[in-house]
């Protein structure tokens, strides 16, 4: 499936911002055999004094920009075309029983970007909590594979949590979203990650895009008009990583386009930046993902 993705993020500041510096992570991520970028333009307005493009630890595309003059507004646009294929399904024979996962994990001698070791401990926005761990335990049976357990927890969360775009802010703590059982894709994903890590399943955060209009006859997915987020689960050394969207209760296929992988939102925030301002700032965000064929 080929997509054209257009994303625009605008900020305006009540007082001029001095010496702003930002890291932008909005480009789709090239993934061999799954995502091929045929075009990718990240445009920043006003033109920054500095701009550099590099890959971060997890292999995500980063555009670093800086302004030496005061700015009143910032606009970031993405225009990209990407060819997407569904990740191959995971063979049942490859699945690791949940009980065996810790030993299998310990045997992994790797701390590269895809190593599951990064995704088990607390990360800046996701700290395993006893109540979420207990919730996760209640969803699973003995003898499940790690991936079965993850899906059971994801489905249960999807049932129990309400999607509510107004209920949370970008920095709402995961604990609050879980306690109130509501939130947006970011909260669904953070809660699920906390649940999985609580029972020793490595789980990471994925930011990306969803096609705006569903294929004929299928319902429109939640989260399609903004950048979306879902979860990445390590099922064992054979099965590797699986992606699951708890907001829509879906194993990720070709409707999802990956932008960045990280431990939680803080690793992949679309625009991370230190803006030295006093006063308000306003922002707007718009995403269109058009299927080209």
């Amino acid at each position: 499936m080929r997509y054209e993705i257009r994303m625009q993020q605008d900020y305006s500041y009540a007082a001029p911002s001095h010496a702003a510096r930002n890291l932008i992570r909005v480009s789709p991520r090239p993934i061999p055999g799954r995502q091929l970028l045929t075009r990718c333009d990240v445009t920043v307005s006003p033109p920054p004094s500095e701009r550099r493009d590099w890959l971060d630890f997890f292999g995500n595309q980063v555009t670093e920009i800086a302004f030496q003059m005061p700015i009143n507004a910032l606009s970031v646009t993405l225009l990209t075309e990407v060819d997407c294929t569904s990740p191959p399904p995971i063979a049942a024979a490859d699945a690791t029983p949940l009980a065996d996962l810790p030993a299998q994990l310990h045997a992994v001698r790797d701390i590269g970007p895809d190593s599951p070791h990064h995704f088990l401990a607390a990360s800046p926005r996701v700290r395993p909590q006893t109540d979420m761990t207990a919730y996760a335990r209640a969803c699973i049976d003995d003898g499940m594979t790690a991936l079965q357990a993850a899906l059971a927890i994801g489905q249960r969360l999807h049932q129990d949590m309400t999607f509510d775009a107004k209920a949370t802010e970008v920095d709402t703590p995961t604990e609050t979203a879980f306690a109130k059982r509501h939130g947006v894709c970011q909260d669904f994903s953070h809660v699920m990650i906390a649940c999985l890590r609580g029972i020793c399943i490595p789980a990471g955060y994925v930011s990306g895009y969803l096609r705006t209009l569903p294929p004929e006859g299928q319902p429109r997915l939640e989260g399609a008009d903004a950048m979306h987020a879902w979860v990445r689960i390590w099922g064992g050394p054979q099965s590797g990583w699986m992606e699951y969207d708890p907001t829509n209760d879906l194993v990720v296929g070709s409707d999802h386009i990956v932008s960045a992988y990280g431990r939680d939102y803080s690793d992949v925030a679309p625009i991370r930046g230190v803006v030295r301002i006093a006063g308000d700032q306003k922002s707007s965000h718009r995403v269109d993902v058009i299927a080209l064929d």
Partner: protein
Amino acid sequence: MPQHEQRTDQPDLSNLLEGYAVPKGTADELFDASGTMRPVWHPFLSYLNGLGPARCESRFHRGNQYLRDMGVFFRRYSTQSGEDRDWPLSHVPVLLHDSDWAQIETGLIQRANLLERVVADIYGPQRLVRNGQLPAELLAQNPEWLRPMVGIRPRSGQFLQHLAFELGRNPDGSWFVLGDRTQAPSGAGFALENRRASAHMYSDFFPDTNVHRLAGFFRRFRDALRGMSDGDTLAILTPGPNNDAYFEHVFIARYLGLMLLEGEDLTVHNGQAMVRTVSGLKPVSMLWRRMDAQFADPLELNEASRIGTPGMVSAIRSGSLALSNALGSGVLETRALMAFLPRLSEILLGQPLQLPNIATWWCGDPQARAYVQKNIHKLALAPALATGLPHDSNISAMGPTGISGEAQPDNWDGTLVGQEAVSLSTTPCYENGRLVPRPMVLRVFLARTPTGWAVMPGGYARIGPGGENSALSMQQGGSVADVWVVSDTDVPRDPLVPNRDTYQRVLQGALPSRAADNLFWLGRYVERAESTIRLIRSYHRRISEGEPAHSRRLQHLAAHLDRLGVDLEQDLPDVLRDQISAATHCASKVRDRFSVDAWVALSDLNRTLAGMTKTVRAGDDCARAMSVLLRKLSGFGGLVLENMYRSSGWRFLEFGRALERAITLNDVLQSFTATDAPNGSLDLAIEYGDSISTHQRLFLVDPNRYSVLDLMLLDLSNPRSVLFQIDILCSLVPDLPLNPDHTAWRETLLRQITAVQQFLTGTRPEGIEISDFDDIRQRLFELSTSLSSIYMR
């Protein structure tokens, strides 16, 4: 009974040593395992014994006084706002013989080399993990393993330049490592102060000893840092005055002539780190980092940090900036690493550790876990990723990664380590006329120089309070002692400045904008507080003289004070306290720029103020209190302004002071020389301006509106006149630094000042309208804004 014996050819030390009982199974510095006094102690103990209790106490007092006078404090976190406490010096140094020290030196140099190899691997090729020699979890789950730093080779080629190690002594007399300090080790500066205190206390003994001197260590390290800095500004990066080691950062910066920078002093342009100075941006390529790595860059590291520099990691990545130690080096402090270092030494260096570390088992490994479960009675369980030391009791309160009582042996996992429970060796402390053994840990500092690692010969040991409490942390009541490494032969004296006969000046770096800002506001707040004190004093004097508070004149004064925010219901108004605390805050940010005397004067002022809060009563008592504050504040102001070198820093301070005095004088004149001001207001104005006798001398009449304006607005010889202060501002401007980015602004500044000056110069007292004061105030405010726009952004 003490087990030790004394050699018969030595003087009788029994008074000093009576009851000196070393706990069973521990090593002691004074007595070896056989109970014989180590020979290195004989001369010092004889000397101490000869002094006798009374003279000892007075010597110790001299040492404490020295430290207080030098402004050596440590900051206590347990209290609400963090307060400065006296430095807890244990007056008896720890004495070690050269031969002991040689073992420590070679062992630690080997360990430093090993740590460099380990850190280079884990931020580089990561072979140790791939080969199964270091568990991936210990890095991947470690908050000190900084992912953005992976793959970045420091521009200097090395990660580690400045290390500290905590050492304990085994019952058999051998040494072992308790902890590695690799993040931003503190204490080396304190060691130097310990030593100076020793030299003061034992001035009739120390100079003739063969104790290795410390200064050479600092000089070698400074020269090494200079060598790495490309001729750019060399600076210490500090987290700021709220850090418990801030005193030390100030001290070292002053001692070594380095700039002291906070995160906001720096900005990054096109991959190059720059210092914001009053003369524009200046490149910096080497920073001695005293800030924990996570806080260094909010953009790529901890996003909640408010003390970092956005883009710092980017500058490091681009190869234009090196930090010493490199960001991410703190990972080496991880407790669980100790379980692997003995083996890593064999692998990476091909030799066993010369100085073992405390035996450690990581519970993530099944065999090690089984060992810990079986031997838990002789082990201590600790968080695997903790970076604290076994005997710092704060580690027991580690929070979520700490040990919860619920964890059953079956659930022990990679988050835990078992460590051999060690008892610390003891060293003598002086208490009530006798020596008593107290637990101790040695802290040893290493610095990388072009010719290899330099080891600071002694200087710092931490002493526990004894009894059941084995905590060594100063926060928990521990103390600190000097460490003397004694040679059998003469030692080089090695002062910091290599040659007494040269007098070449060190090129001074430009003044950081933040320092200029703080100096400017320090000047303003000191002057503002003085003005407030004078007005409050006038009010309470009149009250004490029996003038009713509802008299028109006092009501007029009260209204003026009210406009300044002074609440006269409060005998010591909050506003005054706020002004003095604002001045103190500014001063604390530029403490490296003025003398210790000035700092001590400021501390004294604050203590006095705090003491007055509870006792001061309205009327005469308050008027007298204000006089005391006035004297102390002027003392501080005088020590700073009079004695500070006439650098650009001094000009900003003086500019702030003169500007504020012009503003406050102008306000007072507007209030008290108004034609409708109540009778006697002019007297208040003259009293405020400290000009009563001058007025008597210069004018044959009682004060009238014109005479007061002549003296306090227009007189070029009266430091309490507005024009006098404007003249000072005019004279300062030509020597303010040129900021190439703001040449047009500087013209504006000059124009603004001359405009006020010309207006006042060309005016007679009779020509002054009440609206002129508004005009002058407006122009003075604009001056302040212009100055900030040019220099303090």
